[in-house]
């Protein structure tokens, strides 16, 4: 048993080191290459210089933002996969992304974003996410109990409704609006508002800490709801609160960064394949891995066709998907994913 905790400690250190390497790589890479060894010096003393401005005002905030969003998506994914005992569930399964997209599209179509209210797109995205989450929640309640199987189906249906509605909006929209809608849907870490970046960091870290209050329910739920109850877990309350945490995480990510796919699906599965299913280690490792992965993908997305940027979803899908397939074919037992 002591050995297990030691392994966990090593795992966390290893992942932190990998994350650090990714951060350094991302700091030095871009249109302007800045050698690694010069970075500490520039950040300490180089105030006012071009390189300082690039590092401090552009790359560093973007990295911090990527860490927060990647961590949040991956954490939401691992929590939902645990609660639903279904490896195919991801943060967007329950219709949150569809709702956010409709919210954003509506505000673009009706020109609300032109009224110079600051940050109207994130707000309308969040309102859309909130609405669908609330709908899914209420439609899946029966006598005060949350029926989780019904919830998945309801969520998937609401996603379909939302995407049909999106198609309707896209089909009837002016060409100049089309571009901003599609650009938003594809997701991006190009966030200039430092307030939103701080908010994302605070919310995702608070949610990570909050999720650690549910270690016992999450671990017991690996055996299913009924058996978790037999182990003294109030599953009703635990599932509702875990749903709340993952909705806040997903709602935040979608409204500030758009729909960045794959992170919330692939990273939790990858981590589970490698370190097993104990949520005590799963939550933190998923968070760090998700953050590092997203920053890595973002660095590639913004440099590969420089000076233009690729949508980050292209890279997360290609890299995440192929890494996952490789790991999957090399793993003897995929039943690890079953809970």
């Amino acid at each position, binding site marked *: 048993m002591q050995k297990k905790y030691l392994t966990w400690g090593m795992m966390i250190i290893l992942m932190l080191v990998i994350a650090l390497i990714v951060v350094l790589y991302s700091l030095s890479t871009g249109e302007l290459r800045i050698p690694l060894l010069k970075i500490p010096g520039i950040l300490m003393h180089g105030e006012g210089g071009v390189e300082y401005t690039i590092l401090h005002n552009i790359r560093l905030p973007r990295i911090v933002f990527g860490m927060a969003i990647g961590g949040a998506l991956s954490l939401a994914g691992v929590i939902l996969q645990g609660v639903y005992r279904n490896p195919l569930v991801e943060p967007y399964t329950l219709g949150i992304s569809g709702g956010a997209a409709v919210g954003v599209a509506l505000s673009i179509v009706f020109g609300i974003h032109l009224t110079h209210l600051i940050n109207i797109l994130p707000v309308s995205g969040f309102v859309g996410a909130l609405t669908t989450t609330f709908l899914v929640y209420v439609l899946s309640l029966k006598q005060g109990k949350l029926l989780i199987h019904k919830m998945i189906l309801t969520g998937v249906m609401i996603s379909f409704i939302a995407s049909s509605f999106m198609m309707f909006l896209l089909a009837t929209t002016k060409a100049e609006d089309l571009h901003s809608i599609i650009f938003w849907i594809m997701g991006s870490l190009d966030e200039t508002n430092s307030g939103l970046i701080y908010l994302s960091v605070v919310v995702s870290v608070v949610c990570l800490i909050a999720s650690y209050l549910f270690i016992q329910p999450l671990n*017991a739920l*690996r055996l299913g709801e009924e*058996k978790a*109850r037999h182990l003294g877990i109030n599953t009703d309350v635990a599932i509702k609160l875990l749903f709340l945490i993952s909705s806040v995480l997903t709602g935040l990510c979608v409204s500030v960064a758009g729909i960045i796919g794959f992170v919330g699906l692939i990273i939790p599965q990858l981590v589970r394949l490698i370190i097993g299913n104990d949520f005590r280690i799963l939550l933190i490792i998923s968070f760090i891995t998700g953050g590092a992965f997203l920053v890595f993908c973002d660095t590639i997305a913004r440099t590969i066709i420089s000076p233009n940027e690729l949508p980050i979803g292209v890279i997360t899908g290609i890299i995440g998907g192929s890494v996952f397939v490789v790991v999957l074919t090399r793993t003897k*037992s995929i039943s690890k*994913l079953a809970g």
Partner: protein
Amino acid sequence: MPDFFEIQNLTAGYGHDFHIRNISFNIPKGSFTGIIGPNGSGKTTLFKSVTCELISKTGSILLHGKDVRKMAFKEKAQNLAIVTQDIETAYIPVQEYVLMGRIPYHHRFQFFETKQDLEIVQNFMELTGIAHLKDKYLNHLSGGEQQLANIAKALAQEPELLLLDEPTSHLDITHQVQVLNLVQRLNEQLGLTVLMVVHDLNLASEYCDQLIMLKNGRIHIKGSPEEVLTYDHIEQVYNTLVVTKVNPVSGRPFVFLVSEKVIRQMKQ
């Protein structure tokens, strides 16, 4: 002094249907009680009411005079441990699985298992004979070994009452007997009180010292195996012709089935 475990006037069911009506019985401490009856007679409904999976309409389920349904989740799990019949598919090493039985004793913010938890788990894995499997994954074990792990997990809850729902239904006779012998040993040596739903009348007869026979959601008869498992009662409850004899070794009743063809031939 309230009784150890008592069910009074229990009526329960799904929706507005009542599957069981006015069930009352009493389980003395240290006894081994079996619930028998045909399919649809309310065995599972009764079991689920006791485990609080099903909300019962009226009546009470009292442990030491305290209603189980009003207990906090943790307190309930410290007093009642439940072993069900389904096969576990989760990818969990046996030791980790048995350790889950300690969750009811964990503090909300407790992150690590205590040394005591590990000792208790080791002890019960040895007692159930699965200590050598502790690093194997649960879904790689045979049905019999899984059921032993289920029992070990239940024991790790250190319960006062062990509830088993057809624990032998997927097992061959070797493992049926192995599992039930274990439960019997726990009953005798640890003084653990056992309430078991069981299909097989002969296993019920052999292992239980009190039987409750259900018919259409009501108790048809309760008592010792000799009192309950008679030709008359079985025919009334199961609508089946049987012959009962006494097991020459244990002295318990044994139920023989007779095929239709044989009955036809006898009539001729």
